[in-house]
């Protein structure tokens, strides 16, 4: 198939060899599992269990709230020991409402029923099952998958792209998932194609994963509408927009979604979870996580129960060779800095990376020399240097005019900058600031309307009072007049 390519991109050292050949290991049951109610984009889930409740594996712990949300399930059987605020796996280190589960070690599944022939189900039925299983985008975006599976109802979807790009250095979780569970992934893809009513599915895998390409080609050879495509290894290949551009040559217009041009992208991990949810009726209780980075003694991949503390994973890898300078959740390019290791693995955690001081290579920021390297590598065709200048000055409108909202925060610009300017950090700051100001503006609009309503109400009240007073006065005068008239007529009568 013809590949179209996308502009820019960088080639960071992939370092995938450290974990690729070691397979997927399992972990012993951790002492406790910490399950944040917010592991997805959208509204947080609402707990339905109480402390001391006994739960079975796969049982619902917190139900989804609203259209864009996802439920949380028990990753294993055990007892709920606490529902309180614990540190979130997030750079802010802020607390998040968390359900704490103490495993009983039996790992007893709750009764669940799969569907024998999922191709008889309608789109809504599949989306409902996927939603109820708590499946979110497993590549890290954590957008509720059920919502994305229903997109075919409004827009005709021609292509379902399965993202096996895994362009982030160190990460091999998708690679190993495809190699070890290729048939289940393909089954999930077939179900998703059916739900979306798509014509074809393309599994895009970077050419640095020959094992996965081979397994997937064999697994799909019976299905002519599913094709495995080997794409060049180039960061950020795994980004939705870039992946679509590479395979279809189409660019998503600013402010639109991929479904608007007839394409939906799902991660391979999501396909695997969908297969499990539909065929076996199993809710999302675990995921594959890469533990990597130069500071880890024996990096490898694990199938991890959601809610396991990051520290347990590092412990299983033999600890650290040297004190890590930075611990990340996700890949080293776009991953989130963790506040510590006592935070849980969540549904979107593709990896935990402990980097050495040498690897992060912090260097002093120098002034911009306008070399244009950032412009060359920007996969979105933006001018990072101009956007950064404006963001730094606080001129957010100017930054938006230069395309800030089209920036995918991939960090390629900061990666190549010879002056070590924290370009992508400026963009993240500016995007957050814009979001804050929008919220502030909305709040002001609401209060302005309320103030106006109050003013009108007070005026109406005053007017009503005045009218009532006038009415009373008129009534009183009329009565007086009547009395007067009565008096006069009485007088007249006495006179006559």
């Amino acid at each position, binding site marked *: 198939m013809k590949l179209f390519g996308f502009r820019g991109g960088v080639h960071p050292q992939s370092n995938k060899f450290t974990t690729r050949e070691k397979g997927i290991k399992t972990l012993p049951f951790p002492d406790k599992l910490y399950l944040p109610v917010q592991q997805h984009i959208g509204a947080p889930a609402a707990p339905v269990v109480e402390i001391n409740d006994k739960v079975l594996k796969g049982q619902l712990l917190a139900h989804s709230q609203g259209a864009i949300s996802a439920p949380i399930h028990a990753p294993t059987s055990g007892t709920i020991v606490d529902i309180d605020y614990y540190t979130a796996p997030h750079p802010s280190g*802020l607390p998040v409402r968390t359900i704490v589960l103490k495993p009983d070690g039996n790992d007893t599944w709750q009764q669940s029923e799969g569907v024998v022939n999922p191709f008889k189900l309608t789109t809504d039925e599949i989306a409902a099952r996927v939603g109820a299983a708590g499946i979110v985008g497993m590549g890290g975006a954590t957008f509720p998958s059920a919502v994305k599976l229903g997109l075919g109802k409004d827009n005709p979807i021609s292509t379902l792209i399965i993202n096996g790009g895994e362009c982030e250095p160190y990460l091999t979780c998708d690679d190993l998932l495809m190699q070890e569970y290729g048939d289940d992934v393909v089954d999930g893809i077939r179900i998703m194609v059916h739900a979306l009513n798509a014509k074809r599915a393309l599994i895009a895998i970077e050419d640095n994963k020959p094992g996965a390409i081979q397994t997937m080609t064999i697994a799909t050879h019976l299905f002519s509408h599913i094709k495995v495509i080997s794409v060049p290894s180039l960061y950020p290949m795994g980004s939705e927009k870039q992946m679509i551009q590479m395979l279809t040559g189409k660019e998503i217009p600013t402010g639109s979604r991929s479904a608007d041009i007839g394409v939906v992208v799902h991660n391979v991990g999501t396909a695997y979870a969908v297969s499990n949810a539909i065929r076996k009726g199993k809710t999302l209780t675990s995921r594959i996580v890469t533990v990597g980075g130069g500071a880890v003694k024996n990096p490898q991949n694990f199938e991890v129960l959601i809610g396991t503390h990051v520290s347990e994973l590092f412990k299983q890898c033999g600890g650290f060779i040297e004190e890590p300078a930075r611990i990340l959740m996700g890949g080293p390019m776009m991953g989130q800095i963790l506040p510590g290791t006592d935070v849980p693995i969540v549904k979107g955690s593709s990896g935990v990376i402990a980097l050495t001081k040498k690897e992060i290579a912090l260097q002093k920021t120098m002034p911009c020399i306008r070399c244009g390297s950032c412009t060359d590598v920007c996969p979105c065709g933006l001018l990072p240097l101009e956007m950064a200048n404006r963001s730094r000055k*606080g001129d957010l409108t100017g930054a938006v005019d230069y395309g800030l909202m089209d920036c995918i925060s991939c960090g390629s610009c900061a990666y190549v900058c010879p002056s070590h300017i924290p370009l992508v*950090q400026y963009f993240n700051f500016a*995007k957050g600031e814009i*979001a*804050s100001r929008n919220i502030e503006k909305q709040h*002001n609009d609401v209060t302005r309307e309320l*103030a106006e309503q109050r003013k009108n109400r007070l005026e109406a009240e005053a007017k009503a009072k005045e009218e009532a007073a006038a009415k009373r006065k008129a009534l009183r005068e009329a009565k007086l007049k009547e009395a007067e008239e009565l008096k006069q007529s009485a007088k007249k009568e006495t006179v006559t």
Partner: protein
Amino acid sequence: MLYSAIASLTLMGLTLGFFLGLAGRYLKVESNPIVDELESLMPGSQCGQCGFPGCRPAAEAIVEGAAPVTICPPGGRALIEQLAAKLAIDFDLDSIEDKDPAFAQVSEETCIGCTRCFKVCPTDAIMGGPKQIHQVFREACTGCEACIEVCPTECLHMDGVEITLGTWRWPKPALAA
């Protein structure tokens, strides 16, 4: 030559003067349109935190240059930016210190249900009835502190907004050394 010039200039002056007079009468503007525009941007709660009796006097002062665009605390940065854009002032948003937004909060132990606070609230952000504990709607509170002054039991206090995962933002990277 001289007379024709005088005549034409006089004629021009008279016609233009006539039209100007007409325009002055029929296109008369009741008030300064810029003040109207600024007022429509402002919160409109007439809370008086700026030191002016209401939003309109504040807008007038800003237009006259007697008050800075940073005068309105409930408006925040978003309002400052809009005002500066409207007045074409090149304003460095970095130079202002953000006053952290705050909300009124009722202490349930000391509220006697006197109803005074919600009568003065400019945005109807307080709900309650006589002899019932009152409650503040955070979404509607502008943090103007009007209620605090009238409370006889000092049970109202201002609470800072707690930063949550949803409202946390990346800080600005440190400047180049």
